[in-house]
């Protein structure tokens, strides 16, 4: 269900899980479009030569995935703030699940706080953060 107004939202509500396409071709397309090129993002072997476990999904791409998930859930929501802490690298060609859950609702300001996590298949949190989203208070 899409969220339109603040009263649609409940504390603890989980956003639909989003499994992003972190395949190498998608990452290369993103890097080209964002002019954010670098072998550490687009080439596993080059990344390993830098001491990384593999090519990295750029942080700005991960943040884009987070914003996309929020807007799918609340298309008219105004994302005021996304704040992420990268605890471990997000590796190209590995599977991740982006999760969100509502952890605060401010009726006065129309703002909701969302916990965000990027989790791998093993259930490990690679990235966590929060988003502040402003929703319409009435239709």
């Amino acid at each position, binding site marked *: 269900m899409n969220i339109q107004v603040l009263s649609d939202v409940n504390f*603890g509500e989980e956003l639909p899980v989003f499994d992003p396409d972190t395949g190498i071709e998608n990452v290369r397309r993103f890097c080209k479009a964002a002019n954010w090129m670098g072998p550490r993002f687009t080439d596993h072997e080059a990344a390993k030569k830098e001491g990384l476990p593999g090519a990295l999904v750029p942080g700005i791409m991960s943040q884009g995935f987070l914003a996309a998930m929020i807007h799918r859930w609340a298309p008219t929501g105004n994302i005021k703030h996304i*704040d992420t802490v990268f*605890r471990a690298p997000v590796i190209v060609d590995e599977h991740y699940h982006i999760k969100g859950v509502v*952890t*605060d609702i401010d009726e006065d300001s129309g703002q909701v*706080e969302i*916990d965000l996590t990027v989790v791998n298949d*093993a259930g490990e*949190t690679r990235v*966590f953060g929060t988003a502040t989203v402003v929703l319409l208070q009435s239709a």
Partner: protein
Amino acid sequence: MILDLHAHSIKSDDGRAKVSNYVQWIKTRGLPIDGFVLTEHRQFDFESDYSDMARESGLVILKGSEVETEYGHVLVFGVTESLTQSLDFTNIRLALKDVLKAADDHGAIAIPCHPGRPRVGMAAHIETYGIPAGVGIVETFNGGSRENEDEIAQVMASAQGYRGIGGSDAHIVSHIGRCATRFEDSIRNETELVISLRSGRFEAITYRNAAA
């Protein structure tokens, strides 16, 4: 009694959770914990008073700290003003032996946390510095652990005869209570927490599989 012994609020530089939202989360989700300890990074939060929130919610909300040593990060419970005067909590290069001694001298207790974690965990530094004297307890379940970090902690604890505690290491609301510690005693304040930890009457528990 079950307490999550390792949580961070917005008082920590990388914490994103308000304490009131931890409480709301625990109550609305019906988490099987009786409270939690706020262990803010490199500081002790003297100014916040959560006693009203604790009373209204029926949860135990205590305060501790997480400091940094050459062996990685260390939780300190039972922090007093005199302890913070004798130990610079903001120093990221504290000596573990100094933390252990200062804690002991001031009625507190120091416990290495996420010891299986690279760089900031105790196991990663044993080859360089040797087995530290004076450690009796380590965190064997940490809610933020990846790969085999908890296993490394448990193997080390077993080999060295350490007792284990559990904590979520929550930095966001929805991570509270992922791991915790079950105590035989009832605990109402930091002094009773230290007594119970020194008694050894506790065990580390995890709810991570249930949460996943």
